[in-house]
């Protein structure tokens, strides 16, 4: 698929229960409108999010992964968000190494009172991922499927 306006990115968001998930709830209660490209998955803490979860999402067709946590110093579990911050930095490096744009993983601090920030984050991130185009992981795996199919057809 080419990079064009009709490309609708598919994004998974891991939201911590205490801040970002509640911030998303507040955006809902306030009837803020934002694009429907993001499917949220609730985790207790952003510290629960590991590289495996992000990689799994990219492997299964996500064009990007958003992680939402409490602001530094406000983590409900003391320090889980700091651990996530470190993990995300490493993960972005690892993604670059294998040719995936590191912007396909994004960490944002959204508190329970920041419904507006949740909306803004979704809006900007969907736009960014749209400009990045479909994930190369998806393209690569469908190419591999096509090759595999071609081989089997030929035999």
């Amino acid at each position, binding site marked *: 698929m080419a990079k064009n306006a009709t490309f609708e990115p598919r994004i998974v968001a891991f939201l911590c229960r205490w801040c970002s998930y509640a911030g998303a709830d507040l955006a809902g209660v306030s009837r803020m409108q934002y694009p429907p490209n993001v499917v949220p998955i609730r985790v207790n803490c952003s510290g629960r999010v590991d590289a495996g979860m992000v990689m799994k999402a990219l492997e299964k067709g*996500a064009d990007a992964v958003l992680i939402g946590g409490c602001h530094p110093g406000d983590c409900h579990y003391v320090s889980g968000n700091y651990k996530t911050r470190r993990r995300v930095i490493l993960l972005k490096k690892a993604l670059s190494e294998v040719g995936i744009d590191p912007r396909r993983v994004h960490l944002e601090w959204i508190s329970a009172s920041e419904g507006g920030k949740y909306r803004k984050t979704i809006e900007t991130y969907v736009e960014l991922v749209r400009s990045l185009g479909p994930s190369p992981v998806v393209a690569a795996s469908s190419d591999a499927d096509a090759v595999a199919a071609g081989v089997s057809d030929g035999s």
Partner: protein
Amino acid sequence: MAAPRIGVFVCRCGLNIERTVDTEAVAAALADHPGVVHTDTYDYMCSDPGQAKIKEAIAEHKLSGVVVAACSPSMHEPTFRRAGAEAELNPYLVEMANIREHCSWVHDDRNEATEKAMRIARTMIEKVKGNHPLDDIRIDHVDKCLVIGGGIAGIQAALDVADAGFEVLLVEKEPTLGGHMAQLSETFPTLDCSQCILTPKMVEADRHPNIRVLTYSEVLDVSGYVGNYRVKIRKNPTYVDPEKCNLCGDCVKVCPESTKSEFDRGLSERKAIYIPFQQAIPSSYTLDEETCLGLHPLRCSECQKVCEVGAIDYDMVPEILDEDVAAIIVATGYEPYPILDLGEYGAGSIPDVVDGLQFERLLSASGPTGGEIRRPSDGRVPKNVVFVQCAGSRDPENHNSYCSKICCMYTAKHALLYRHAVHDGEATVFYIDVRAGGKGYEEFIQNATEEERIRYLRGKVARIFQDGDKVTVWGVDTISGKRVDIAADLVVLATSMNPHPSTEAVTKTLKIGCGGEGFLKEAHPKLRPVESLTAGVFVAGSGQGPKDIPESVAQASGAAAKAIALMAQEKLTHSPEVVSIDEEICGGCGVCVGMCPYGALSLNGAGQAECNEVLCESCGTCVSACPTGAAQLKNLSDNQVREMIEVALANG
């Protein structure tokens, strides 16, 4: 393991969901999802008939799990889990898919929202398929409550908890209980003398057999969990033994050092050894080591020499107390907006521009002028006083954007008390609006404006400057559209209410949140106004937001009732969705041990990780760090998350 039998119940929430999500289409699509054996839709799943549908389906279809696709789990998860339990389905096998807050309310395209709702619901179906039935963990608790802050809210909360038969530790940073209420002259709208109604409560708290008052003390650290918090408190040395001190005051007479009195807000001086006010609790002197010439007896020691009862002890050291408490009530209170930040009103540079609390001291019989209103610069009785409302409030460009709620009332009270004391004096109030919502409040304002000849001018003050011995106030009366120019003798700023400067440190120690303005954050602004988001930590008083005395007292009693309800339970329940360690896989590397902020994980005798379920708060940080996958969160395992991710992204 038997094949899953999942029931999915899609709520229309009247039109709240149905307007943008085609619930019938969602139910139809989910009926084909592997493991789903029953689907249903209804107008209000949370209603009794809605819950009855779920309960009947659990029995009829022998459901092994339930997903209710409706609102946020923070709304109704307990409702549906209880319904499951009533139908003999373990409550931890009931999950909610949030298709309202996260979907129908935030999207307008019906096709797109319907598709997203299906994806959200599928993630929860996959989650519940991996869930295990769990029983709540039951834990013992201690029977003691910590109250932080000894103002009127803290005192009230402490008394209520103590009267219910539980022990209380009442910790106050200052040398006396009382807080700002002790500084007030008279209270609106009844004009009771503030100290006369407060000090009996201070005495009651001090004498109560269940209350231990710790003044001049600070909470340094809090660990543990609801029911069993471990708190570390530092009791700072006052260098005076309150048991021996007989309040003779000889020490004060000989003390050579003085500083500005905090209690009189800088309008008078106090000695290095002092008592904030005569009715202070504990009734004893405090030696302020910052102002003292030096604690070494060779430096001065005048106070020690003169003290007949030998109450003064320079060798006193800070005392560190470790206490176990079940609940914590945070009543850290407020501080007036820093007057030096109001330079545009001449505050700080013009001596006869004072803040509201300084004027309280000028009105108070225990104040620096003995209750006579005299201005700070030359001690003259001011014949023309200007009161400026909203000084620092409702001014988003320069100061606080919020309304401080009490200033309209206290300004009316100030002007009225001034008119009572100085019959030929003129009182002018500049206001934006007059907000007097409260029992008897509007009547009080009406009386002040109509009976007491107080001039109310609607408008803001443009400039205040010193002009000879007068303080000139330039303003605008926006109703007549005329410029107003007043040569005043004294200007009183109705300063905004800020959260007490200690609030931030206390919230960090307790791991509870602050709102944007720095006030303590309640768990829910309407329905859980006295709870924090941390179990067992409650909030009360003006630390949570601007409020007056009756509101502070009511909230304190509310917080106390919550703490009592907690301690009255024989055992507390703790979520069983905690971390478990798979002994088959754990290699004993110990990475998880360092990750856990609660000390719940340790290596056991066999060199493997072990989780203390009571301490585990279920954050899952250890799970994501465990290199082998041995550490897993019950009902949110790596496998479950993988399945959730897959269906969130799958087509169709």
